[in-house]
Structures are given as structure tokens and as C-alpha cells.
């Protein structure tokens, strides 16, 4: 039932339904592009990525260089989006901050899915005590709201960007491990896998040719579904000062630091706010469309 599907980025109740249908990824990409909402999301996403990756190459200002004689300059020809309270170029900082906000969201999801993949694969293949132990741990982790677990880890390690990322990885690997394991368990019963084994092909090769591709596709789908909430989490916790420490740029931290300047320099607040919103909505549009496409009921 689609009711337990989560969406709320910062909602403690977030949980994803466990059973996903098997994905045929080539078809999915094409159908995503035909899906109008997904298309908007994808175009937005590509634009944002260009902004943070190509932007710093073609835009000449140094995001870290303060210019104390030119604080809070309004948008103009020299500084396209003006300067912040230390005279740093706002556009350059938005690009650098975006690299940190978006890059770290992808990094966390990448680490989480790799960790989940490795643990789930070993658990599914080996069975026995490791499987039992890992899955009990997964049960416990999944029973706790992710936000609460993240707070526990940041609370122990202390505020800091790396600590925040570690906390997010620790608090969200479990679902990926369970998904991988259940996929592996089903795959082991599959006709093609059994035939390959009977033909004398070693497990190592079978895993690479028959199991891994399917698992990866599934993980990519889940990563897409979680991307929006991850961006919101990272910028939200940085907003509270638990992530990036000054003077480094990050959208959530920039937003937090510019609140007072709003009446005087609204562009400082609106820039990161709009970019955070666009990133989350881009990821969510793609994620939603993916869910629509993969939902067997919708395909009937």
C-alpha cells in the first residue's frame, strides 16, 4: 500500500515500503523522460549541477576571499548577486555552497548504499550468524526515526560537517542493507542463477553478472527517492550550526547567517533559500515520477 511511503524530508515517520517491483532500467529512463514532471525535475537537476560544477570554472570570483571595503554590496555588474557581510562574492559562495550541499547529499547516499550493499550482500550470501546479527541490527535501526539517530551520533561526535555526514550515514544505511539482502535471497532462487551455478560458474562471477546489476538498479531508485530529503536534512542541520562551520559556505549555513540582513540585503537570504527549494523539488519530482512508473497498480 502506498500509504507508508515517506516523503516528508524531516519527518521522523519517514519509512519506505520494503517491497519494490523488479526494475527494468532502460525502459525506465525513457519513460521518465516522457513523464512531464520528471522531465521538469531532470532539467532542473541538470541546471543545478551545471551551476555548482561548471559555475566556479567560468565565474572568476574567489568565494573565500573577503573584501572588507565592499561589504553587503547590492547585486551589480562587479558582483552579480552582491556581496555578503564580509564582502565575499555571493554568487561564488552559492556555487561553492551548492557543491557542498548537493555533493555531500550524493556522497552520503553513495556511502550509505555502498555500505548497505556490502552488508546486505554478505548477509544474503553467507547466512548464519552474520546474517542474523546484521538483520537484528537493521531491525533496530529501522525502528528508530532517522533524525533521532542522526542527533545521537552528532551529539557524540560534536558539530562539524564531516561528523554530520558520518551521522547521516550511520542513521540511514539499514534500509539499503535489508533491500540488498532480500534481493540477494530472491535472486539465489532464480532460474538463471541456479543454471549458472549448475554450469559450474563460481559465486563471484554469478554475483557480478547476475545479481549485482539488479541490486544496483534498485539501489539507484531508492537513492533517487531519498535524495530530496537528504538535501533537506543536510542543509537543515547546517542551518542549526551542527554541520558546516564558518567561514565555509553551505546553503543551509548561509541561510542561517543572513537572516538578520534580510531587510537590508534580502538577496543574501533568498539565494540559498531558492536553491535549496529547487534542489529538493527537482529530486522529488524525479522520485515521484519514478514511483508512479514503478507502481504496478498505476501500470495496470
Amino acid at each position, binding site marked *: 500500500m502506498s500509504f507508508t511511503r515517506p516523503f516528508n524530508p524531516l519527518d521522523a515517520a519517514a519509512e519506505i515500503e520494503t517491497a519494490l517491483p523488479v526494475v527494468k532500467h532502460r525502459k525506465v529512463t525513457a519513460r521518465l523522460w516522457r513523464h512531464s514532471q520528471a522531465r521538469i525535475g531532470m532539467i532542473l537537476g541538470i541546471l543545478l549541477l551545471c551551476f555548482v560544477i561548471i559555475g566556479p570554472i567560468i565565474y572568476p570570483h574567489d568565494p573565500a576571499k573577503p573584501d572588507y571595503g565592499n561589504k553587503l554590496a547590492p547585486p551589480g555588474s562587479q558582483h552579480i548577486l552582491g556581496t555578503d557581510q564580509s564582502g565575499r562574492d555571493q554568487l561564488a559562495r552559492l556555487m561553492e555552497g551548492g557543491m557542498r550541499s548537493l555533493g555531500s547529499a550524493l556522497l552520503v547516499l553513495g556511502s550509505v548504499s555502498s555500505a548497505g550493499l556490502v552488508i546486505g550482500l554478505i548477509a544474503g550470501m553467507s547466512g548464519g550468524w552474520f546474517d542474523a546479527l546484521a538483520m537484528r541490527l537493521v531491525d533496530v535501526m529501522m525502528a528508530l526515526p532517522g533524525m533521532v539517530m542522526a542527533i545521537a551520533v552528532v551529539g557524540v561526535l560534536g558539530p562539524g560537517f564531516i561528523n554530520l555526514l558520518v551521522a547521516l550515514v550511520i542513521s540511514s544505511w539499514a534500509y539499503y542493507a535489508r533491500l540488498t539482502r532480500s534481493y540477494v535471497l530472491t535472486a539465489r532462487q532464480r532460474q538463471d542463477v541456479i543454471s549458472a551455478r549448475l554450469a559450474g560458474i563460481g559465486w563471484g562471477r554469478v554475483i557480478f553478472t547476475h545479481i549485482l546489476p539488479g541490486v544496483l538498479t534498485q539501489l539507484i531508485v531508492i537513492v533517487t527517492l531519498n535524495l530530496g530529503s537528504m538535501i533537506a536534512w543536510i542543509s537543515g542541520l547546517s542551518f542549526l550550526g551542527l554541520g558546516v562551520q564558518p567561514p565555509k559556505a553551505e546553503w543551509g549555513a548561509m541561510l542561517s547567517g543572513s537572516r538578520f540582513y534580510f531587510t*537590508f540585503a534580502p538577496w543574501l537570504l533568498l539565494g540559498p533559500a531558492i536553491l535549496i527549494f529547487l534542489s529538493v523539488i527537482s529530486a522529488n519530482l524525479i522520485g515521484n515520477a519514478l514511483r508512479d512508473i514503478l507502481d504496478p497498480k498505476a501500470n495496470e
Partner: protein
Amino acid sequence: MKPFKSFLILACLMVLLAACAPMATSETVLQQTEEYEPLRFVTSFTIKSLDPVSQGFWLAEYGVAELLMQYRDDGNHYPWLLNSIENVDDLTWVLTLREGLTFQNGKPVDEEAVLAVINRQMELSSSAQSSIPEGTVFEITAPLEITVKTLEPYPRLIPTLASESVFPIYDVEAVEAVGENFGELAGTGFYTGPFSVVSLDDQALILERNENYWAGRPKLQGVEVRFVSDAQARILAVQNGEADICNYPPTEAKSVVDATDGVNFVYGWPSSGGFRAILNTQESPFDDPAVRKAFNRAIDYAVLANDVMDGVVKQATGFFPEWVPFSIQNQVTDLEQAKQLLDEAGWVVGDDGIREKDGERLSIIMLIYPQQPDLVPISEAIQAQVLEAGIEVEIQLVDSIFDALTDESTVWDVGVTSGGSLSFGGSPEQSLLTYDHSEAYRNWAGHTNPELDALIDELAVTFDSEKRTEILKEFQRVRVEEDPQQFFLTFHTTRFIVNDNYQDYHPGMALYFVHYLTTPGEYETPTFEDN
């Protein structure tokens, strides 16, 4: 179908109305003749309890607690709850209390009450224990008279009595009656100041006028101190008319505040604190006094204070702030001299502009910490300035500067801390003994300089003010000109963001934020000379 639609539209309208319903409008401060609305502070530090031992100093700042002596803007000390303090001989002091003093609850403040505070503080307060030398005896020798006898000459007694955390005068009986439940002290009037505590919780300290204040009837009806750790929210609160005065505003807010109507950036009296740079002399390159001097001369202190910090902090012209009577202005910027010193010491400029000596780059690690956000622009500016002399600076942000400097494993060359060259009570030797003496517990670099030690030791037992000035001047000469192992980058100011009612706000020394004469137009710290 139709009625259903209209029902839905009605429901939508109701939702919208509910969402838009007016909530409450912000209050405005009303002024009447000699009757002033409570003054509303919004500050970053939470006052944790009404325990006078650990939290009493906050109440001194907000006009609740009072001290025996007062340290004032002119750099001198005056009697406050005392009538007089007399130095009978090098080891004996006679303290005489004002006549007719009462606590807010009406009980008399006599010699017994004050001695009870002194005894209780000596038993429980670590600040009192560390400020009063061992073997000191306090005893009642006449009505309203307490005699103090020390084993060694102790000229620091006067600044100690003016220190907000040593002997705030409170009603010991009332405090002991509540045991550990300090919350029950609210409403008992256990201090002597112009305002008494109505309530204290996590959100706010609420004070009301003490109608029986000994120096006169306080003009404000009361004081509210709200605790909001988020600086942005504090400033917004003043802008939105929810508070009159925001304490501890970030310096970077100044330019915006100056350009915004209804809020003003104002200064109190100069602070005795500053950003102190401590050089690690146990490691190369600062084991060489020439490199220490070169680093000290290569920094442009005027630029740090006036350009980088917009004049929100004061230029460090010497080891003590300029307003201190015995200060000399001998800290100079001289890039050429810095280069020359390094040349003479054998540091040669390399290909990339950084000096080298025997294959070692002149590269130093500077530790700063996030609790002081101003250190970010200051350290970045220093980085650019000393680069001109061929010194490379790597800035590292550490969670806790004290932990980092105490930890043996930390690699550092410069540590920056926030601390004064004068104690809160106005004593120079207190801080010299804490930071600069070889045996000082905050001498993290383990630096020894026998010449400075001798001067500090002599100062600690010298009463004569001319002689003291002489010693202090010699100390400053050696410290800044010969061995700048510790020096100041900038001196702090006491800053506030205030609304238009309080745009002339200008509180006096040692953070006395409010007193009995405070009104929107009146801010000078009273002298109590007429009382």
C-alpha cells in the same frame, strides 16, 4: 453535487480565515514622568540558577547584586557598599560599611551579614578561594567594621573586592534556608541592589523595582532579561520592538544596523578584554626571539581594528588598552623591521615568497575557535599581512581553544584566546599571574622569562601607586619590545544593539548594565558619592 461544492468552498474559506486571524501586536514602550516601563534585555547567556556562588556575578551586571568596591571608567576603584577602605599597614586593612544599608527584604546589611557572605564564599566559591591568599583572616573589630589581615602584602585586595564573582553581598540566612532549591530564592529579596528577582526560568530573568533601595528610588519599574542564544533572533527581537537592548551582538551586524531605521549600534565603556596571541616558544620558529618580534611587527593592528572590524573593536596599541592610566603605546607595525629581523636571523626569501632556513619553511599554524566568529576575518587578515614579510600562516579551527592548548599532542605555533590584561575587578597582576608568569597555569607554551617574572612578583606585593606604574611600564616595555611571546591583536569593546528609546545607552565599566538611575535618557554609572 451543488451543496457539496458550496460546503467545500465554505470549509476552505474557514481554513483561510483561521490561518489569517490576527495574533498579537507588538508592544510599544510608554513613557510617563519618572515612571518607566521595564527595560527589556535580550542576551545570549542563560543564567542557570539563583545560586549566588556560581551565578551571582550575572546579577551584579543586571542591577540585583552589589559589591563592596566599584571599579569605574576612570580606571580607579571607589567604595560601593563600603563607606571606606583603609590600608593600616602592609598586612592590615580596615573595611567600614555604609550606615543604614538594608537588603531588599529589609534586613540590615551589617558587619555580621557581610562577614557571613565572606565566610560562605571562601568555603564554596572557587573564585573567592583563588583570589584571597591562604592565611587571610577576616574579623569584626567594631560595629560596621571588618578588619582583614594577610600573611603577605596583598595590594590586590581592592580589585578583588570589586570583582563580581568574589563577594557579591547577599543575605546568607535567606540563601541557606532554601538549601539546594535556589529557585525558592525568587521573591525573597536576598540582594541589596535596585532591582530584585521576581522569577528566573530558562527563558527569562524578571526583576522588579526595589522600592527601598538605599541610594534612592529606582526609576525603571523593572528589568526583563531574556535568554536567546541565537544572535540573529536577538537582533530581530530589537528590530521588531520585542526588546530594548541586545547584548553581545556579532560585530558583523554593525554595517547593517547603521543602515536600518529603529535599531542602533552603540558602545559601552571600553572593555579590558582583547584577543591575546600566544606564541609557542617550545618549537621552531618561535623559539627564536627574533622571529617572535618579526611576527609582532609584521601585523598591522590599525587595519585589524579599523578596516577588518569596521572600528567595532579597538586597536591594540600596547599591552594594556589606551584608557588604562599606566598603559604605554609601544606596540608598532613595522614591516621593514620585521623583514630585517628575519634576514638577520638567517631566514631567506624562497621562490614562492615564503622564507626558508636550513630547508625549513617559515610556516606557522594559528589556532582559532568557532565561539569567536570575529577571529575568522582577523586571522585571515593577519595571514595576508605577515605574508608580506615572508611568513606563511595556516589557520586551524579547533572546537575548544583551551583543550587544544592544554593537549600535549596539538601541533601549534600561535594560539588566539579571548582574555584581558586586566581582571574584571581591574587588577593587572591577576591576569599577569594567570597568563604571563612562567608558573602561570595558562602559560600553555611553557615560556620562561626571568626578567618578566621578577617584575610580576614585585608588582604583586607593591602598594605605592607610583612604584606600581613604574614596574608596569617596565613590564610593558620588555613584554612588547623585547619578548612579544604574548601580545594583543585587538581590544574588545562592550557593544549593544538598541532601539531608538535607548539610543544613548552607554553603560559603565565592568558590565554594570543597569542601575537605579537608568532610564531611556540616562545611562552614566552613579558614583554614590552623595549617599
